[in-house]
């Protein structure tokens, strides 16, 4: 993972980091990704007949929209105006 790769991943992540951190993270992430090569030791596939014993029966509920009017919604917001979350200009 080169510096250029880190930049593109940062862009995808909506994340900014300092140049110093970019350098540090690149080395660390490369070491971690190198370790991931042990996965190539596993060439078998799970038996398609095998069923994970949990979450077999997913119980769903009706998806009903709910108003969320707790006073903390406004208090927790960094900028709340006229009943909505205010953000900097997009363009």
């Amino acid at each position, binding site marked *: 993972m080169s510096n250029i790769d880190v930049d593109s991943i*940062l862009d995808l992540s909506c994340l900014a980091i300092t140049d110093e951190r970019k350098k540090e993270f690149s080395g660390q992430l490369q070491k971690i990704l190198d370790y991931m090569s042990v*996965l190539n030791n596993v060439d078998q596939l799970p038996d398609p007949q095998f069923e994970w014993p949990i979450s077999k029966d997913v119980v769903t509920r009706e998806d009903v929209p709910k108003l969320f009017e707790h006073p*903390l919604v406004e208090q927790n917001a960094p900028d709340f105006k006229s009943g909505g979350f205010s953000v900097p200009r997009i363009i």
Partner: protein
Amino acid sequence: MSILRQIEKDLNSGQYTVAELTQAVLKKIAADDTNSFIESFDSSALNTAAEIDASDQTSSLIAKGMPVGIKDNMCFENHGVTCASAILDGYKSPYTSTAVQNMLDRGFVPVGRLNMDEFAMGSSNEYSIYGLVDNPWDASCVPGGSSGGSAAAVASGLVPVSLGSDTGGSIRQPASFCGVVGLKPTYGRVSRYGLIAFASSLDQIGPFAQYVEDVAILFESICGFDSNDSTSELRTDQSFVDQLKSGTLTGKRIGVPNELMSEKVATSVQDAIRKTLKTLESAGAIIDYFDFKYFDEALATYYILAPAEASSNLSRFDGVRYGHRSAKGQTLRDMIELSRQEGFGDEVKRRIILGTYVLSSGYYDAYYGKAQQVRGVVTQRYSDLLNQYDFICSPTAPTTAFKKGAHEGDPLTMYLSDLATIPVNLAGLPAISIPCGLDSNGLPIGFQMTGGWFQEQSLLQAAYELEQRLAFKPKNQFRMDPLL
């Protein structure tokens, strides 16, 4: 031995009231210097205690009035919750998580929120904006993580029980490092509603205590089906305390992975595990050794899947609706990027980058797809093994608690300390860590027992019986001090 039963006895005999108990615990927390607690809930705890004292005292609920600490990633209405992150500094939850609500309904009194690694990403509690937590056995050592505060608070005797969460070992490893009992339930046993998500397919809430019986009491209080969590399981077996003492180790088949009794594990830890296996054998259990084959592969799998899920889950922290917002951003994009840069710590950033990378076009199949395949293989391996054995036993961690700063700048070495716990999360199995001895430095060693899916009853029974035989002495047992 049960501290909760002793408190119940004292309350019923009128030795002290719930309000006096709560007040004493809050004073202990205020005087504590381990940094286990981030905040104490003085006002709400004392109000709840007063309500319990004023209510019908004939209730048979053992949990009534019992103080409990909660990890700083569980929502509790009108209380702060930050995941030990600057990005949620000052945030107060507008709702209560199901696990906490279930506890409240049983009469537990939440007394405060506990320190942790930021967003539960870490194995040492060193990644917290609130600073390091001291290991109560040796303040120069870490308490483990990510639920380091939850383990240290119980080990210090500040609270009799606490709640943590376990994504890759975050209950069991700190339990091991702090010499307490920690249970990671089967995935789906405890609702994740209101648990701030790290890796949704792996996260599970569970209890800490100094004794197995107290772990069983708290566990029974928090589990159950919840329609707010689509992975919550509808189960009928939800009573774990009544039958706790009716189990037997006689004839139980115990499988021990050879890899976790090898050079991967410190000699002192291996010695303590061998001694514990002999104790099990003398109780009538049958010990057998096997090659698990996939420990390294499971670790690699986890460090692909967990960051991948985290990178998605943490995208909600954008400074728009809640949390930290950078004052520097002139456009929306700048504001989001800078808010995340200022709000997240280094380990969280590392995992977001790693997770985004393994999900990105061109790398998805090689990393995420492959990891999903290996997760299936590991789970199937466990299924085969649990047809042969009642329990799989091993050290909880390869070492005892390490020194603060020992793995600074070397995240891979830190990740390797989760070797014994991570495969259990991949398969969604229940596992418990109980203290089984001390190393030559006087630091506790944890013994991990893994059971079959939803076999918490037999797991707790076996752990209880083993605990009686080991007779491990806690460092600082919780007690109600009348002088406080």
